[in-house]
């Protein structure tokens, strides 16, 4: 059978979701952001949620998420996405409101807003991209940077005495009474992508059902910041990141 006989519309089993528009994404080759964007677009499409979805974009590499996923977006000041999401959801309870935050946003500058939104049990979904580095500003240390990990502000590796410990903020989130679903996923293999998709879908459904705050951490790579190929970065993540940030549900109520 010839390839052209297979490439027919009736045989198509996978395509780019329509809600992920044709704008060229500014992310580096192999960046995890693209996969997560694609999943969000797929899920919103499958849930027929285009008309009620509101995304809150962070500051960081994903600041331009609003250019790629075709729903309504507000671009928040650094770290404040959960505060904006709180208002957007409380003032419009019928909407599906989600934040998209990096590790600096969630675990450094926006720790207060993130923890308190979760502690109040705001009916929002928080998508948290943890790649242990500040990508957009050029690879500086993040609160989640691993000990010994080299970044442009820890050029000799992160040291406890100088920089403190990596912060597993998702573990803190799981302790809060306001969260209903806290999970840690990755998108580096086909199986992982499928699980991450199911997790984000559940978080979105929780937002609509008013069950409380859902947090989906995606342990991610930043191959440019880590100075590796995308393939090496995936391997490095499996070998190093998963020890500190183990994959799986932390809370599922």
């Amino acid at each position, binding site marked *: 059978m010839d390839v052209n006989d297979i490439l027919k519309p009736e045989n198509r089993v996978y395509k780019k979701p329509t809600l992920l528009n044709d704008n060229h994404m500014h992310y580096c080759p192999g960046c995890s952001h693209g996969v997560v964007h694609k999943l969000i677009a797929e899920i919103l499409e499958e849930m027929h949620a285009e008309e009620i979805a*509101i995304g809150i974009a962070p500051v960081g590499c994903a600041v*331009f998420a609003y250019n790629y996923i075709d729903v309504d977006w*507000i671009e928040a*000041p650094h770290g404040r996405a959960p505060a*904006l999401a709180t208002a957007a959801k*409380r003032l419009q309870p019928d909407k599906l409101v989600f934040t998209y935050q990096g590790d600096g946003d969630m675990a450094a500058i926006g720790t207060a807003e993130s923890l308190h939104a979760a502690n109040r049990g705001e009916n929002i979904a928080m998508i948290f991209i943890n790649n242990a580095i500040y990508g957009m500003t050029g690879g500086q240390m993040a609160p989640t940077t691993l000990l010994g990990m080299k970044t442009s502000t820890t050029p000799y590796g992160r040291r406890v005495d100088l920089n403190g410990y990596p912060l597993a903020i998702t573990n803190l989130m799981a302790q809060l009474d306001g969260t209903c679903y806290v999970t840690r996923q990755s998108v580096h293999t086909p199986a992982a992508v499928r699980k991450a998709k199911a997790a984000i879908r559940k978080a979105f459904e929780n937002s609509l059902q008013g069950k409380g705050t859902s947090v989906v951490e995606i342990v991610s790579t930043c191959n440019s910041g880590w100075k590796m190929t995308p393939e090496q970065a995936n391997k490095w993540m499996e070998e190093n990141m998963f020890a500190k940030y183990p994959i799986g549900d932390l809370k599922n109520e």
Partner: protein
Amino acid sequence: MEEVRLMKGNEALAHAAIRYGADGYFGYPITPQSEVLETLEELRPWETTGMVVLQAESELAAINMVYGGAACGKVVFTSSSSPGISLMQEGLSYIAASEVPALIVNVMRGGPGLGTIHPSQADYFQATKGGGHGDYHMIVLAPSSVQEMCDFMWLGWDLAFKYRTPAMLLADGIVGQMMEKVVLPEPRKRRTEDEIRQLCPWAINGRKNMRPRNVVTSLELDDERMEQNNLRFQRTYREIEKNEIRYEEINTDDCDYLLVAFGSMARICQKVMEIAQEEGLKLGLLRPITLWPFPYEQIKKSSRNAKGILVVELSAGQMIEDVKLAVECKVDVKHYGRLGGIVPTPEEVLDSLKEQFSINK
């Protein structure tokens, strides 16, 4: 129905908000304005009008909740006092740059730093000259009575929505804490989602009927487009300057000396005028109601025949800079103010006027 009540300025503005049809309040307690949140919590508007009231974890969170709500085309506000307003400057700059309407109440207390809980007007620079980063302005309304605390909430929102810009009620601890008679306006209904879609087509409320997506953002990395954005903001500011200058004048026709004061100080200056009149000294009072846009032209006009201007402020001299700009060095401009939360007596102000302009000497 209209209602006549006796209440504090801080309480009046909470009532005014509910009656305007406000959708949400987000705030953090700080003296001397905590009655705003307390009054709202006591009135439980979520059970009547559906208004959301939320005590945030910080002023930073509160202003960003206001930003989020404003981006959704909702009628939202926050209130705080000076140190809290400093924390809010980040959000204010974003709100201005994103061109969304919001109302912020600052019941000023003395600074700098933690300062004092007593009244002050020393946030004039911060409110009128930007405060946060970048080239932006807020409409700044200065109430001098409990009635105006109520009325300017409505005016503030009307202007904020008309120009898609943040507006601030710049009150001080005196106006916030004092009790007066107030006529509360007849309540209005909150806007429905359909009304918001019509009035604010830019609002973040979901792509109903598959309309193109709306994005509220202050970011633009393309230099040319960012300059165009800034030029658009400036055009709006010129339009506001043209249409929205508000002030009150008392006895400014052929006065010997002109007093310029806002908020609570304008009330004290009224008494100063009365005492002076008994002594045969003709004083006029110009009270700017909008501190931005500032009534430059009117001050110039009203002081044309005056021998001098005394600017009376609870600060070391901030509004005096705008008054000097207004008169272009053609009139002698002096300042009198008390710091640290002290409110001057009318006699004290009059003595200062006489001394600084060498009257009766």
